[in-house]
């Protein structure tokens, strides 16, 4: 009968631990995916869809959930890519498309026919207008996602570069020889990443 004691002990232990785990999974349940939340917080929230997903949140879910590559966010640029790679614990990958200067959309109001199609397309609700009235863009809120360009039937929307504001100006990288060298080294390093990617 001695063999019954260990069986009994382990069965009791398993029961206690199992019950504990069951309670823990219920009472400490975390809503949503915390990893996806973290990735989403890093994304620039332009909702532009350049990553191939219908917005920043879906891309964050895809990166955190099914391990989609971290280099699809074009407006986020290299900094965002590195930060996401750091969180996900994967190797950084170079962004395929070139980084461009920040832009905002601008409606040439003379040509606008007031069709409201761009208003429906704007993911951040920054276009003002009514049917058969001029529309205009609140540039302070425009993320430069270019989603309003395509639905416009008269092509009256331009993307213009945001002017450099005095209060937002910051000092550039010191342009000494060493800084140039460091830049070059960094470029080579980036090239290596691209190489491994390919």
């Amino acid at each position, binding site marked *: 009968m001695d063999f019954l004691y260990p069986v009994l002990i382990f069965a009791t232990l398993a029961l206690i631990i199992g019950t504990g785990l069951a309670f823990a999974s219920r009472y400490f349940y975390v809503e949503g995916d915390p990893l996806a939340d973290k990735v989403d917080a890093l994304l620039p929230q332009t909702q532009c869809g350049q990553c191939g997903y219908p917005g920043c949140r879906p891309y964050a879910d895809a990166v955190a959930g099914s391990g989609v590559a971290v280099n699809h966010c074009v407006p986020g640029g290299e900094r965002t890519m590195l930060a996401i790679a750091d969180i996900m614990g994967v190797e950084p990958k170079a962004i395929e498309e070139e980084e461009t200067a920040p832009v905002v959309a601008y409606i040439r109001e003379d040509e606008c026919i007031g069709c409201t199609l761009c208003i429906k397309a704007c993911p951040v*609700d920054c276009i003002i207008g009514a049917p058969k009235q001029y529309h205009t863009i609140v540039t302070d809120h425009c993320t430069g996602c270019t989603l309003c360009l395509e639905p416009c039937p008269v092509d009256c929307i331009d993307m213009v570069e945001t002017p450099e504001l005095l209060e937002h100006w*910051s000092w550039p990288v*010191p342009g000494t020889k*060493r800084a140039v060298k460091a830049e070059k080294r960094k470029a080579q390093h980036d090239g290596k990443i691209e190489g491994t990617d390919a």
Partner: protein
Amino acid sequence: MLNIWHKIQQSLSLGSAQGFTGGIVHGNQYKITAGHPIVACALPELFIHPIKQHIGEPCEPIVEVGERVLRGQMIAKPQGYLSVPVHASTSGTVTCIEEHTIPHPSGLGMISIHIKPDGMDETDESLHPLPNYRSVDATELRERVRDAGVAGLGGAVFPTFIKLVQDQQNQIDTVLLNGIECEPWLTCDHQLMLEKAHEIISGLDIILHMVEADKGIIVIEDNKLDAADVMKQTLSDMGLTDSIYVQVLPTRYPQGGERQLIQAVTGKEVPAGGLPLHMGVLSLNVGTSKAVYDAVCLGEPLTERIITVSGDAVPKPANMSVRLGTSMHFLLKQCGVEHFDGIKIMHGGPMMGELLNQDDVPVVKGSNGILAMNQQTIMRAHHQEEPCIRCGDCGDVCPAGLMPNLLAAHCKENQFERAEDYSLFDCIECGACSYVCPSHIPLVHYFRYGKGQVAQIQREKTFAEESRQRSEKRDARLAKELADKEEKRRVAKAKKEARAKALAEKEAAEKVVVDKDNVEQPDVEQTDKPEVKVDEKPAEDKA
């Protein structure tokens, strides 16, 4: 426990009782304009007044093109709390209000009010003098200091009126008047103290009255002992020796920095993130004190300031009294500069000043010096950056107690979070580390780059958060619209069904009635009735 630790610290004199840590000593040979009397600058052909000459919110122009303005007339009114107005420097006509480059390293412009002087120099007298300031309420004096557009004239241009209030939590007991002027080349404060001692001390007296402090200290470095003597003499002449005294400190850069000055005078270090106010100390530049005097006792807004025009490309260096808005090109011409090719213009002192790309920029409230240097001189001092040899000299001279070599390395590699861990934002950008670096690393430049990038990242984060909220709200709205539509459709469908049902029932009922009408024959009813009776019978039997 903490008290015991402080006592131990004091007994071991770990926290330096006097003086601040770090710093460097410059020779006196650069102060070539020392002792040069203040010369008034002639009126230029055009005045340019940028609408923001202080730290804080920009002003809004209140004059129109073609309007005639008088000297001291407010031409741009402050917007928001952290803002002081801009005044016309002479009488004349507003020619245009448009963007003009300002003295800033970016070379960018700002909306500026252009005034063409008429040469009469008529003064606007809307601010009446308040010579009996002791009987005037502190709030009114504070309002006056604001209306006169006074901002810190030491170079930081923080609106002065904000400082001039007795705080409820932190009792201000000492007012420091900063006559240190530790930058090489600059001598404007020195000369001001020699020539306008009475005004400076009266200004300090007004400030003491406003903040109800009982002690005023005028701090002067020992390379300006003549100014200290003049100040002491004036103090005893005015009979203010009980409340105000002069303190002479050994010459050391950057003693004129607010935090360093407080540490040097009181022995107390202003903690990181803290304000001098928390130490019960208020510090102001001597020029600001004079501006406060002008505003209160003479009713004159801030329309001119003393500037040192110097540098090895200036044939006749001088301390000049310049109207704000005068072009630096004009000013340098007044000092004998003929050819502007091959010279570099620096705004401020050589340690903390900024190289300008243009000479056609106006003098603003924060201009304490204009240095024109030969390009060769600058290139001789300019070296290529070498690798850091970890000598630690930068850490030794840092007055903020930072490790500039590590900070610069982090900034260079874009590791801004680490740089912030190493207290990037406690750097006062005094330039002492760059000055002593044997490898000629432009350390302060890296810190400025890092600070700019951190601010940029913060702005982008805030914008992303706003965009997220807008996007989420839009999604919620669309979902609600869709749900509402569904609901409406459902309700409509239900109604339609109900109506159809009702119609059907009605029709059925009518049909029944019609049927009844049609089929109402006695035979049928009679045949029905017996059947019912047959059904009921068994129940009765049971009962």
